[in-house]
Protein backbone atom coordinates (compact mmCIF):
# COMPACT_ATOMS: atom_id res chain seq x y z
CA UNK A 1 0.00 0.00 0.00
CA UNK A 2 2.74 2.42 0.86
CA UNK A 3 4.35 1.76 -2.51
CA UNK A 4 1.26 2.86 -4.43
CA UNK A 5 0.89 6.04 -2.46
CA UNK A 6 4.58 6.86 -2.76
CA UNK A 7 4.21 6.69 -6.52
CA UNK A 8 1.52 9.33 -6.32
CA UNK A 9 3.94 11.90 -4.97
CA UNK A 10 7.30 11.11 -6.50
CA UNK A 11 8.53 14.69 -6.33
CA UNK A 12 8.24 14.75 -2.56
CA UNK A 13 10.17 11.56 -2.08
CA UNK A 14 12.86 12.70 -4.49
CA UNK A 15 13.38 16.07 -2.87
CA UNK A 16 13.76 14.88 0.66
CA UNK A 17 15.37 11.52 1.09
CA UNK A 18 16.19 11.92 4.79
CA UNK A 19 12.82 12.34 6.51
CA UNK A 20 10.65 9.47 7.52
CA UNK A 21 7.89 8.89 4.98
CA UNK A 22 4.29 7.83 5.45
CA UNK A 23 2.63 6.91 2.17
CA UNK A 24 5.22 9.01 0.43
CA UNK A 25 4.70 12.12 2.50
CA UNK A 26 7.29 13.43 4.95
CA UNK A 27 6.52 12.93 8.60
CA UNK A 28 7.34 15.11 11.56
CA UNK A 29 6.61 14.92 15.22
CA UNK A 30 5.36 17.82 17.20
CA UNK A 31 5.30 17.31 20.92
CA UNK A 32 4.88 13.57 20.51
CA UNK A 33 2.08 13.97 18.01
CA UNK A 34 2.49 12.59 14.52
CA UNK A 35 2.11 15.04 11.66
CA UNK A 36 2.23 14.27 7.94
CA UNK A 37 3.01 16.90 5.34
CA UNK A 38 1.75 15.89 1.92
CA UNK A 39 2.09 18.00 -1.20
CA UNK A 40 -1.07 19.75 -2.18
CA UNK A 41 -1.87 17.36 -5.04
CA UNK A 42 -1.07 14.30 -2.96
CA UNK A 43 -3.33 15.31 -0.08
CA UNK A 44 -6.48 13.45 -1.10
CA UNK A 45 -4.52 10.28 -1.92
CA UNK A 46 -2.78 10.46 1.43
CA UNK A 47 -6.04 10.85 3.34
CA UNK A 48 -7.48 7.94 1.35
CA UNK A 49 -4.44 5.80 2.13
CA UNK A 50 -4.61 6.72 5.80
CA UNK A 51 -8.29 5.82 5.82
CA UNK A 52 -7.28 2.41 4.53
CA UNK A 53 -4.82 2.20 7.42
CA UNK A 54 -7.61 2.60 9.94
CA UNK A 55 -7.80 6.37 10.29
CA UNK A 56 -11.54 6.26 9.79
CA UNK A 57 -12.56 9.42 11.53
CA UNK A 58 -11.74 12.95 10.51
CA UNK A 59 -12.23 14.59 13.87
CA UNK A 60 -11.22 18.07 12.91
CA UNK A 61 -10.16 20.17 10.00
CA UNK A 62 -9.16 23.80 10.21
CA UNK A 63 -7.08 26.41 8.50
CA UNK A 64 -4.16 28.43 9.78
CA UNK A 65 -2.92 31.67 8.29
CA UNK A 66 0.85 31.84 8.77
CA UNK A 67 1.19 35.37 7.40
CA UNK A 68 3.96 37.06 9.33
CA UNK A 69 4.70 34.02 11.47
CA UNK A 70 8.23 34.47 12.74
CA UNK A 71 9.73 31.21 13.96
CA UNK A 72 10.26 28.04 12.00
CA UNK A 73 7.14 25.99 11.65
CA UNK A 74 8.46 22.54 12.40
CA UNK A 75 8.12 21.42 8.80
CA UNK A 76 10.22 18.45 7.73
CA UNK A 77 12.89 19.13 5.11
CA UNK A 78 11.52 19.23 1.59
CA UNK A 79 8.29 20.96 2.54
CA UNK A 80 8.28 24.60 1.60
CA UNK A 81 6.16 26.83 3.78
CA UNK A 82 3.23 28.70 2.25
CA UNK A 83 0.96 31.30 3.74
CA UNK A 84 -1.98 29.03 4.48
CA UNK A 85 -2.12 25.63 5.96
CA UNK A 86 -5.02 23.21 6.15
CA UNK A 87 -4.77 20.94 9.16
CA UNK A 88 -6.81 17.76 9.29
CA UNK A 89 -6.85 15.65 12.43
CA UNK A 90 -7.51 12.00 11.75
CA UNK A 91 -8.34 9.39 14.35
CA UNK A 92 -7.90 5.65 14.27
CA UNK A 93 -10.50 4.38 16.75
CA UNK A 94 -9.25 0.79 16.67
CA UNK A 95 -5.58 1.39 17.35
CA UNK A 96 -6.38 4.55 19.34
CA UNK A 97 -3.95 6.80 17.59
CA UNK A 98 -4.12 10.14 15.87
CA UNK A 99 -2.36 11.73 12.97
CA UNK A 100 -2.39 15.30 11.81
CA UNK A 101 -2.22 16.08 8.11
CA UNK A 102 -0.83 19.53 7.36
CA UNK A 103 -1.07 20.77 3.79
CA UNK A 104 0.62 23.94 2.60
CA UNK A 105 -1.71 26.12 0.56
CA UNK A 106 -0.22 29.03 -1.39
CA UNK A 107 -1.65 32.51 -1.11
CA UNK A 108 -2.03 33.13 -4.83
CA UNK A 109 -4.01 29.97 -5.39
CA UNK A 110 -5.72 29.02 -2.13
CA UNK A 111 -7.25 25.79 -3.35
CA UNK A 112 -7.01 22.31 -1.97
CA UNK A 113 -8.89 19.08 -2.60
CA UNK A 114 -11.97 18.40 -0.53
CA UNK A 115 -11.98 15.23 1.53
CA UNK A 116 -15.76 15.16 1.92
CA UNK A 117 -15.93 12.19 -0.48
CA UNK A 118 -14.00 10.17 2.11
CA UNK A 119 -15.06 11.91 5.31
CA UNK A 120 -18.51 13.46 4.90
CA UNK A 121 -18.03 14.87 8.38
CA UNK A 122 -15.45 17.29 7.01
CA UNK A 123 -18.28 19.10 5.22
CA UNK A 124 -18.90 21.72 7.89
CA UNK A 125 -15.21 22.06 8.70
CA UNK A 126 -14.36 22.81 5.10
CA UNK A 127 -17.19 25.28 4.82
CA UNK A 128 -15.93 26.96 7.97
CA UNK A 129 -12.39 27.09 6.61
CA UNK A 130 -13.67 28.57 3.35
CA UNK A 131 -15.75 31.07 5.26
CA UNK A 132 -13.07 32.23 7.67
CA UNK A 133 -9.90 31.83 5.58
CA UNK A 134 -11.06 31.87 1.98
CA UNK A 135 -9.43 28.55 1.22
CA UNK A 136 -11.31 26.87 -1.60
CA UNK A 137 -12.02 23.14 -1.41
CA UNK A 138 -12.22 21.46 -4.79
CA UNK A 139 -14.98 18.92 -5.00
CA UNK A 140 -16.94 20.10 -2.00
CA UNK A 141 -20.65 19.67 -2.74
CA UNK A 142 -21.82 22.97 -1.34
CA UNK A 143 -19.05 25.34 -0.43
CA UNK A 144 -20.88 28.31 1.02
CA UNK A 145 -20.45 30.52 4.02
CA UNK A 146 -21.46 28.83 7.22
CA UNK A 147 -20.78 31.12 10.17
CA UNK A 148 -20.75 34.53 8.52
CA UNK A 149 -23.74 35.91 6.62
CA UNK A 150 -24.01 35.00 2.93
CA UNK A 151 -23.27 38.51 1.76
CA UNK A 152 -20.22 39.01 4.00
CA UNK A 153 -17.08 40.30 2.36
CA UNK A 154 -13.67 39.10 3.43
CA UNK A 155 -12.48 36.17 5.48
CA UNK A 156 -12.25 37.14 9.14
CA UNK A 157 -9.63 34.73 10.47
CA UNK A 158 -7.01 35.88 7.98
CA UNK A 159 -4.24 37.75 9.68
CA UNK A 160 -4.70 40.81 7.48
CA UNK A 161 -8.32 41.09 8.55
CA UNK A 162 -8.32 43.44 11.50
CA UNK A 163 -10.40 42.89 14.56
CA UNK A 164 -13.31 45.21 14.02
CA UNK A 165 -14.35 47.64 16.66
CA UNK A 166 -17.77 49.14 16.86
CA UNK A 167 -17.96 52.36 18.84
CA UNK A 168 -20.27 51.92 21.77
CA UNK A 169 -22.11 54.96 22.85
CA UNK A 170 -22.57 55.17 26.57
CA UNK A 171 -25.38 57.30 27.79
CA UNK A 172 -24.67 59.87 30.40
CA UNK A 173 -26.08 58.93 33.78
CA UNK A 174 -29.58 60.21 34.09
CA UNK A 175 -29.05 61.97 37.36
CA UNK A 176 -25.81 63.38 38.59
CA UNK A 177 -27.20 63.15 42.13
Amino acid sequence: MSGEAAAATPAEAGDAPEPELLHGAPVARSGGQLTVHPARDGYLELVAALRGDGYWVCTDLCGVDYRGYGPSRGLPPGVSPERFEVVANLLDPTARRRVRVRVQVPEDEPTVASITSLHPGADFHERETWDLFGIHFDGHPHLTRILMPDEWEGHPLRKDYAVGRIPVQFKAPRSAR
Partner: protein
Amino acid sequence: MSATDLDALDAALEHLGRDGSVLRMSETEAEERSGYQPPTGEGLGERMIMNMGPQHPSTHGVLRIVLELDGELITRSKPVIGYLHTGMEKTGEELTFLQGPTNVTRMDYASPLFTELAFSLATEQLLGIEVPERAQWIRMLMCEVNRLTSHMLFMATNGMDLGAVSMMLYGWREREELLRFLEKVTGLRMNHNYIRPGGVAADLPDGWRDDLLATLEPLPDRLEEFDTLMTGQPIWRERLQGVGVITTEECLSLGVTGPILRSTGHAWDLRRDMPYLRYDEVDFDVLVGSYGDCFDRYAIRLNEIRESIRIIHQVLDKMPSGDYRIQDKKVTPPPRARIDESMEALIHHFKIFTEGFKVPEGEAYVAIESPRGELGCYIVSDGSSKPYRMHIRGPSFVNIQSLPHLMHGGMVADAVAIVSSVDPILGEVDR
Protein backbone atom coordinates in the same frame (compact mmCIF):
# COMPACT_ATOMS: atom_id res chain seq x y z
CA MET B 1 -15.28 -2.33 20.40
CA SER B 2 -17.74 -3.22 17.70
CA ALA B 3 -16.76 -5.18 14.64
CA THR B 4 -16.61 -2.35 12.16
CA ASP B 5 -14.41 -2.80 9.16
CA LEU B 6 -13.47 -0.75 6.18
CA ASP B 7 -16.02 -2.43 3.90
CA ALA B 8 -18.86 -1.55 6.23
CA LEU B 9 -17.49 1.96 6.44
CA ASP B 10 -17.33 2.24 2.65
CA ALA B 11 -20.89 0.97 2.42
CA ALA B 12 -22.00 3.62 4.88
CA LEU B 13 -20.10 6.24 2.95
CA GLU B 14 -21.84 5.27 -0.24
CA HIS B 15 -25.16 5.15 1.53
CA LEU B 16 -24.63 8.60 3.05
CA GLY B 17 -23.87 9.98 -0.36
CA ARG B 18 -26.73 8.23 -2.09
CA ASP B 19 -29.77 8.66 0.10
CA GLY B 20 -29.78 12.41 -0.45
CA SER B 21 -30.77 13.48 3.01
CA VAL B 22 -28.73 16.67 2.97
CA LEU B 23 -30.41 19.66 1.43
CA ARG B 24 -27.95 21.80 -0.51
CA MET B 25 -29.68 25.08 -0.92
CA SER B 26 -28.58 28.61 -0.22
CA GLU B 27 -30.19 30.36 2.69
CA THR B 28 -31.64 33.02 0.39
CA GLU B 29 -33.24 30.46 -1.86
CA ALA B 30 -34.66 28.63 1.12
CA GLU B 31 -36.07 31.93 2.32
CA GLU B 32 -37.74 32.55 -1.01
CA ARG B 33 -39.20 29.11 -1.32
CA SER B 34 -40.30 28.82 2.27
CA GLY B 35 -43.84 29.01 3.47
CA TYR B 36 -46.99 27.37 2.32
CA GLN B 37 -47.41 26.78 -1.36
CA PRO B 38 -51.00 25.93 -2.27
CA PRO B 39 -51.00 22.65 -4.17
CA THR B 40 -52.21 22.90 -7.71
CA GLY B 41 -53.79 20.02 -9.59
CA GLU B 42 -50.64 18.98 -11.33
CA GLY B 43 -48.27 19.71 -8.48
CA LEU B 44 -50.11 17.83 -5.74
CA GLY B 45 -47.61 16.21 -3.46
CA GLU B 46 -45.00 18.69 -4.50
CA ARG B 47 -42.30 19.13 -1.93
CA MET B 48 -42.44 22.05 0.38
CA ILE B 49 -39.59 23.93 2.01
CA MET B 50 -40.18 24.85 5.62
CA ASN B 51 -37.94 26.76 7.99
CA MET B 52 -37.75 25.53 11.53
CA GLY B 53 -36.05 28.08 13.71
CA PRO B 54 -33.95 30.02 14.41
CA GLN B 55 -36.53 31.19 16.93
CA HIS B 56 -38.05 27.82 17.65
CA PRO B 57 -38.15 26.80 21.31
CA SER B 58 -36.93 23.29 20.64
CA THR B 59 -33.84 24.32 18.70
CA HIS B 60 -31.86 24.97 21.89
CA GLY B 61 -30.93 28.47 20.97
CA VAL B 62 -30.64 29.70 17.46
CA LEU B 63 -30.40 26.67 15.25
CA ARG B 64 -32.36 26.92 12.04
CA ILE B 65 -33.24 23.83 10.07
CA VAL B 66 -34.49 24.09 6.52
CA LEU B 67 -36.77 21.12 6.01
CA GLU B 68 -37.94 19.75 2.72
CA LEU B 69 -41.27 18.11 3.36
CA ASP B 70 -43.26 15.61 1.42
CA GLY B 71 -46.53 15.87 3.28
CA GLU B 72 -45.72 14.86 6.84
CA LEU B 73 -42.39 13.27 5.92
CA ILE B 74 -39.02 14.95 6.01
CA THR B 75 -37.10 14.16 2.86
CA ARG B 76 -34.08 16.41 3.05
CA SER B 77 -32.95 18.95 5.57
CA LYS B 78 -30.18 21.42 6.16
CA PRO B 79 -29.02 22.86 9.46
CA VAL B 80 -28.24 26.54 9.12
CA ILE B 81 -25.94 27.91 11.79
CA GLY B 82 -23.96 31.04 12.48
CA TYR B 83 -26.60 33.12 14.24
CA LEU B 84 -24.50 33.13 17.38
CA HIS B 85 -21.13 33.58 15.70
CA THR B 86 -19.12 36.10 17.64
CA GLY B 87 -15.65 35.39 16.29
CA MET B 88 -14.35 33.77 19.45
CA GLU B 89 -11.44 32.13 17.65
CA LYS B 90 -10.38 35.56 16.39
CA THR B 91 -10.81 36.99 19.88
CA GLY B 92 -8.68 34.14 21.18
CA GLU B 93 -5.78 35.41 19.11
CA GLU B 94 -6.02 38.77 20.86
CA LEU B 95 -6.01 37.40 24.40
CA THR B 96 -3.04 36.02 26.28
CA PHE B 97 -2.86 32.40 27.29
CA LEU B 98 -3.86 33.44 30.77
CA GLN B 99 -6.92 35.29 29.52
CA GLY B 100 -7.78 32.53 27.06
CA PRO B 101 -10.01 30.49 29.39
CA THR B 102 -12.31 33.48 29.95
CA ASN B 103 -12.98 33.40 26.24
CA VAL B 104 -13.28 29.70 25.53
CA THR B 105 -15.43 29.07 28.58
CA ARG B 106 -18.22 30.96 26.84
CA MET B 107 -18.33 28.55 23.93
CA ASP B 108 -20.09 25.57 25.41
CA TYR B 109 -22.00 27.36 28.11
CA ALA B 110 -23.62 24.18 29.42
CA SER B 111 -20.28 22.54 30.14
CA PRO B 112 -17.80 25.41 30.33
CA LEU B 113 -15.14 23.61 32.36
CA PHE B 114 -14.46 21.18 29.54
CA THR B 115 -13.53 23.87 27.07
CA GLU B 116 -11.28 25.45 29.68
CA LEU B 117 -9.70 22.06 30.26
CA ALA B 118 -9.05 21.43 26.56
CA PHE B 119 -7.51 24.86 26.18
CA SER B 120 -5.37 24.45 29.29
CA LEU B 121 -4.17 20.98 28.32
CA ALA B 122 -3.17 22.20 24.86
CA THR B 123 -1.31 25.15 26.35
CA GLU B 124 0.41 22.92 28.88
CA GLN B 125 1.44 20.55 26.16
CA LEU B 126 3.12 23.41 24.33
CA LEU B 127 4.73 24.58 27.57
CA GLY B 128 5.87 21.06 28.30
CA ILE B 129 4.65 21.15 31.89
CA GLU B 130 2.59 18.74 33.90
CA VAL B 131 0.32 20.12 36.58
CA PRO B 132 0.53 18.74 40.14
CA GLU B 133 -1.35 15.64 41.14
CA ARG B 134 -3.96 17.46 43.19
CA ALA B 135 -4.72 19.88 40.36
CA GLN B 136 -5.40 16.95 38.07
CA TRP B 137 -7.82 15.38 40.51
CA ILE B 138 -9.54 18.71 41.16
CA ARG B 139 -9.95 19.12 37.41
CA MET B 140 -11.47 15.66 37.16
CA LEU B 141 -13.79 16.32 40.06
CA MET B 142 -15.02 19.61 38.67
CA CYS B 143 -15.42 18.23 35.16
CA GLU B 144 -17.50 15.33 36.37
CA VAL B 145 -19.74 17.66 38.40
CA ASN B 146 -20.02 19.74 35.26
CA ARG B 147 -20.94 16.65 33.29
CA LEU B 148 -23.74 16.05 35.77
CA THR B 149 -25.08 19.57 35.31
CA SER B 150 -24.85 19.24 31.55
CA HIS B 151 -26.70 15.94 31.46
CA MET B 152 -29.27 17.30 33.92
CA LEU B 153 -29.81 20.15 31.52
CA PHE B 154 -30.32 17.61 28.76
CA MET B 155 -32.83 15.72 30.89
CA ALA B 156 -34.70 18.96 31.48
CA THR B 157 -34.76 20.22 27.90
CA ASN B 158 -35.36 16.79 26.42
CA GLY B 159 -38.32 16.37 28.71
CA MET B 160 -39.64 19.79 27.85
CA ASP B 161 -39.25 19.26 24.12
CA LEU B 162 -41.23 16.06 24.29
CA GLY B 163 -44.00 17.35 26.51
CA ALA B 164 -42.82 15.99 29.85
CA VAL B 165 -42.92 19.45 31.38
CA SER B 166 -42.52 18.33 34.95
CA MET B 167 -39.22 16.76 33.92
CA MET B 168 -38.06 20.22 32.97
CA LEU B 169 -38.60 21.37 36.53
CA TYR B 170 -36.90 18.34 38.06
CA GLY B 171 -33.89 18.50 35.75
CA TRP B 172 -33.49 22.19 36.42
CA ARG B 173 -33.78 21.66 40.17
CA GLU B 174 -30.99 19.09 40.30
CA ARG B 175 -28.82 21.15 38.00
CA GLU B 176 -29.24 24.18 40.20
CA GLU B 177 -28.12 22.23 43.29
CA LEU B 178 -25.00 21.11 41.46
CA LEU B 179 -24.34 24.57 40.10
CA ARG B 180 -24.42 25.80 43.66
CA PHE B 181 -21.45 23.56 44.38
CA LEU B 182 -19.64 24.85 41.30
CA GLU B 183 -20.41 28.38 42.40
CA LYS B 184 -19.01 27.73 45.84
CA VAL B 185 -15.74 26.48 44.37
CA THR B 186 -15.28 28.77 41.39
CA GLY B 187 -17.31 31.81 42.36
CA LEU B 188 -19.58 31.57 39.34
CA ARG B 189 -22.47 29.38 38.30
CA MET B 190 -21.32 29.28 34.70
CA ASN B 191 -18.37 30.55 32.64
CA HIS B 192 -16.10 29.73 35.52
CA ASN B 193 -12.60 30.47 34.23
CA TYR B 194 -11.54 28.02 36.90
CA ILE B 195 -9.28 25.63 35.00
CA ARG B 196 -6.30 27.60 33.77
CA PRO B 197 -2.98 26.72 32.22
CA GLY B 198 -0.85 25.55 35.11
CA GLY B 199 -3.59 24.19 37.31
CA VAL B 200 -6.81 25.58 38.67
CA ALA B 201 -7.63 29.08 39.85
CA ALA B 202 -8.09 28.28 43.53
CA ASP B 203 -7.99 25.37 45.89
CA LEU B 204 -11.21 23.68 46.92
CA PRO B 205 -12.86 25.69 49.70
CA ASP B 206 -13.24 24.50 53.26
CA GLY B 207 -16.03 22.02 53.67
CA TRP B 208 -16.21 21.17 49.98
CA ARG B 209 -16.33 17.46 50.68
CA ASP B 210 -19.39 17.66 52.92
CA ASP B 211 -21.06 20.05 50.52
CA LEU B 212 -20.52 17.77 47.60
CA LEU B 213 -21.62 14.67 49.47
CA ALA B 214 -24.75 16.47 50.61
CA THR B 215 -25.45 17.53 47.02
CA LEU B 216 -24.89 14.04 45.66
CA GLU B 217 -26.79 12.25 48.38
CA PRO B 218 -30.32 12.67 46.99
CA LEU B 219 -29.31 12.12 43.36
CA PRO B 220 -29.61 8.31 43.12
CA ASP B 221 -33.18 8.50 44.41
CA ARG B 222 -33.97 11.33 42.02
CA LEU B 223 -32.60 9.31 39.13
CA GLU B 224 -34.95 6.50 40.16
CA GLU B 225 -37.74 9.04 39.93
CA PHE B 226 -36.61 10.01 36.45
CA ASP B 227 -36.77 6.36 35.53
CA THR B 228 -40.29 6.09 36.87
CA LEU B 229 -41.34 9.28 35.18
CA MET B 230 -39.86 8.58 31.79
CA THR B 231 -37.86 5.45 31.09
CA GLY B 232 -40.63 2.99 31.73
CA GLN B 233 -43.44 5.13 30.39
CA PRO B 234 -45.12 3.77 27.26
CA ILE B 235 -45.77 7.29 25.96
CA TRP B 236 -42.13 8.26 26.40
CA ARG B 237 -40.87 5.11 24.77
CA GLU B 238 -43.32 5.41 21.92
CA ARG B 239 -42.08 8.90 21.25
CA LEU B 240 -38.39 7.96 21.20
CA GLN B 241 -37.87 4.34 20.27
CA GLY B 242 -36.95 3.79 16.66
CA VAL B 243 -36.80 7.53 16.01
CA GLY B 244 -33.69 9.07 14.49
CA VAL B 245 -31.69 5.91 13.94
CA ILE B 246 -28.03 6.07 12.96
CA THR B 247 -25.39 3.38 12.56
CA THR B 248 -21.85 3.17 13.88
CA GLU B 249 -20.37 3.48 10.41
CA GLU B 250 -22.41 6.54 9.63
CA CYS B 251 -21.31 8.12 12.89
CA LEU B 252 -17.65 7.41 12.21
CA SER B 253 -17.89 8.76 8.68
CA LEU B 254 -19.56 11.90 9.90
CA GLY B 255 -17.10 12.31 12.76
CA VAL B 256 -19.97 12.17 15.23
CA THR B 257 -18.85 11.31 18.76
CA GLY B 258 -20.18 11.22 22.29
CA PRO B 259 -23.51 9.73 23.31
CA ILE B 260 -24.64 9.60 19.67
CA LEU B 261 -21.77 7.33 18.69
CA ARG B 262 -22.16 5.27 21.85
CA SER B 263 -25.88 4.83 21.22
CA THR B 264 -24.99 2.80 18.13
CA GLY B 265 -23.20 0.22 20.25
CA HIS B 266 -19.68 1.48 19.59
CA ALA B 267 -17.94 1.89 22.94
CA TRP B 268 -15.84 4.97 22.39
CA ASP B 269 -15.09 7.27 25.26
CA LEU B 270 -11.86 9.24 25.31
CA ARG B 271 -11.79 9.02 29.08
CA ARG B 272 -11.27 5.30 28.75
CA ASP B 273 -9.79 4.90 25.28
CA MET B 274 -7.25 7.71 25.25
CA PRO B 275 -7.11 8.67 28.92
CA TYR B 276 -6.10 12.12 30.03
CA LEU B 277 -5.78 13.54 33.57
CA ARG B 278 -6.13 10.54 35.90
CA TYR B 279 -9.05 8.81 34.26
CA ASP B 280 -7.03 5.63 33.96
CA GLU B 281 -7.03 5.39 37.75
CA VAL B 282 -10.78 5.45 38.24
CA ASP B 283 -13.23 2.71 37.51
CA PHE B 284 -16.27 3.43 35.39
CA ASP B 285 -18.27 1.88 32.59
CA VAL B 286 -18.67 3.18 29.08
CA LEU B 287 -22.34 2.91 28.31
CA VAL B 288 -23.52 1.84 24.90
CA GLY B 289 -26.90 1.47 23.28
CA SER B 290 -27.97 -1.06 20.73
CA TYR B 291 -30.27 0.68 18.25
CA GLY B 292 -28.79 4.14 17.83
CA ASP B 293 -32.17 5.79 18.30
CA CYS B 294 -33.33 8.71 20.40
CA PHE B 295 -34.26 6.46 23.28
CA ASP B 296 -30.75 5.02 23.47
CA ARG B 297 -29.27 8.48 23.51
CA TYR B 298 -31.60 9.46 26.33
CA ALA B 299 -30.84 6.31 28.30
CA ILE B 300 -27.10 6.68 27.83
CA ARG B 301 -27.11 10.20 29.19
CA LEU B 302 -29.29 9.20 32.12
CA ASN B 303 -26.93 6.39 33.04
CA GLU B 304 -23.84 8.48 32.44
CA ILE B 305 -25.09 10.58 35.32
CA ARG B 306 -24.81 7.48 37.49
CA GLU B 307 -21.33 6.73 36.13
CA SER B 308 -20.21 10.29 36.83
CA ILE B 309 -21.44 10.00 40.41
CA ARG B 310 -19.40 6.81 40.66
CA ILE B 311 -16.33 8.64 39.39
CA ILE B 312 -16.89 11.54 41.77
CA HIS B 313 -17.01 9.18 44.76
CA GLN B 314 -13.71 7.63 43.69
CA VAL B 315 -12.16 11.07 43.23
CA LEU B 316 -13.32 11.96 46.73
CA ASP B 317 -11.50 8.92 48.08
CA LYS B 318 -8.34 9.50 46.11
CA MET B 319 -8.01 13.27 46.30
CA PRO B 320 -4.37 13.83 47.23
CA SER B 321 -3.06 16.77 49.16
CA GLY B 322 -0.59 19.13 47.60
CA ASP B 323 -0.57 22.08 45.32
CA TYR B 324 -3.53 23.08 43.20
CA ARG B 325 -1.35 24.74 40.59
CA ILE B 326 2.17 24.36 39.34
CA GLN B 327 4.75 26.40 41.21
CA ASP B 328 6.44 27.68 38.12
CA LYS B 329 7.11 31.38 38.44
CA LYS B 330 6.87 31.79 34.70
CA VAL B 331 3.38 30.33 34.41
CA THR B 332 1.49 30.89 37.63
CA PRO B 333 1.46 33.96 39.84
CA PRO B 334 3.23 33.66 43.19
CA PRO B 335 1.15 33.09 46.33
CA ARG B 336 -0.43 36.27 47.65
CA ALA B 337 1.64 36.23 50.84
CA ARG B 338 4.91 36.17 48.92
CA ILE B 339 4.07 39.43 47.17
CA ASP B 340 4.23 41.30 50.45
CA GLU B 341 7.72 40.16 51.25
CA SER B 342 9.47 39.66 47.94
CA MET B 343 10.11 42.26 45.27
CA GLU B 344 10.80 39.50 42.77
CA ALA B 345 7.43 37.88 43.45
CA LEU B 346 5.75 41.22 42.86
CA ILE B 347 7.53 41.57 39.54
CA HIS B 348 6.52 38.07 38.47
CA HIS B 349 2.96 38.76 39.48
CA PHE B 350 2.95 42.00 37.54
CA LYS B 351 4.54 40.47 34.45
CA ILE B 352 2.14 37.54 34.33
CA PHE B 353 -0.92 39.71 34.52
CA THR B 354 0.25 42.44 32.18
CA GLU B 355 2.03 40.69 29.35
CA GLY B 356 1.32 37.08 30.21
CA PHE B 357 3.68 34.15 29.96
CA LYS B 358 5.38 33.12 26.77
CA VAL B 359 4.57 29.78 25.24
CA PRO B 360 7.19 28.05 23.09
CA GLU B 361 6.46 27.92 19.39
CA GLY B 362 4.78 24.87 17.99
CA GLU B 363 1.34 23.43 17.60
CA ALA B 364 -0.69 20.97 19.59
CA TYR B 365 -4.04 19.26 19.37
CA VAL B 366 -5.62 17.93 22.53
CA ALA B 367 -8.95 16.16 22.73
CA ILE B 368 -11.07 15.39 25.76
CA GLU B 369 -14.46 13.79 26.25
CA SER B 370 -17.02 16.49 26.85
CA PRO B 371 -20.64 15.55 27.62
CA ARG B 372 -21.33 15.96 23.92
CA GLY B 373 -18.36 14.14 22.45
CA GLU B 374 -14.81 14.84 21.45
CA LEU B 375 -13.85 18.37 22.37
CA GLY B 376 -10.57 19.29 20.75
CA CYS B 377 -8.37 22.30 21.01
CA TYR B 378 -5.75 23.09 18.38
CA ILE B 379 -3.30 25.81 19.29
CA VAL B 380 -0.49 27.24 17.19
CA SER B 381 1.96 29.35 19.14
CA ASP B 382 4.63 31.62 17.70
CA GLY B 383 6.51 31.92 20.95
CA SER B 384 4.67 34.97 22.21
CA SER B 385 2.19 35.26 25.03
CA LYS B 386 -0.86 35.02 22.76
CA PRO B 387 -1.92 32.05 20.69
CA TYR B 388 -1.16 32.54 17.02
CA ARG B 389 -4.17 30.43 16.17
CA MET B 390 -6.66 28.91 18.53
CA HIS B 391 -9.22 26.50 17.18
CA ILE B 392 -11.82 24.63 19.16
CA ARG B 393 -13.30 21.49 17.69
CA GLY B 394 -16.74 21.65 19.18
CA PRO B 395 -18.54 18.33 19.37
CA SER B 396 -21.90 19.98 18.74
CA PHE B 397 -20.59 21.55 15.54
CA VAL B 398 -19.84 18.12 14.13
CA ASN B 399 -22.78 16.30 15.68
CA ILE B 400 -25.20 18.72 14.09
CA GLN B 401 -24.18 17.33 10.71
CA SER B 402 -25.93 14.11 11.61
CA LEU B 403 -29.31 15.87 11.78
CA PRO B 404 -30.20 15.46 8.07
CA HIS B 405 -29.40 11.76 8.25
CA LEU B 406 -31.30 11.27 11.49
CA MET B 407 -34.33 13.09 10.15
CA HIS B 408 -34.39 11.60 6.67
CA GLY B 409 -37.66 9.80 6.12
CA GLY B 410 -38.98 10.70 9.55
CA MET B 411 -42.03 12.66 10.56
CA VAL B 412 -42.04 16.39 11.19
CA ALA B 413 -43.09 15.79 14.77
CA ASP B 414 -39.99 13.66 15.30
CA ALA B 415 -37.71 16.47 14.23
CA VAL B 416 -38.08 18.01 17.67
CA ALA B 417 -37.20 14.73 19.38
CA ILE B 418 -34.18 14.30 17.13
CA VAL B 419 -32.75 17.78 17.62
CA SER B 420 -33.25 17.36 21.33
CA SER B 421 -31.48 14.00 21.40
CA VAL B 422 -28.44 15.40 19.59
CA ASP B 423 -28.28 17.99 22.39
CA PRO B 424 -26.41 20.71 20.52
CA ILE B 425 -25.15 23.77 22.33
CA LEU B 426 -25.25 26.56 19.82
CA GLY B 427 -22.64 28.66 21.55
CA GLU B 428 -20.15 25.98 20.73
CA VAL B 429 -21.50 25.38 17.23
CA ASP B 430 -21.13 29.00 16.20
CA ARG B 431 -18.28 30.10 18.46
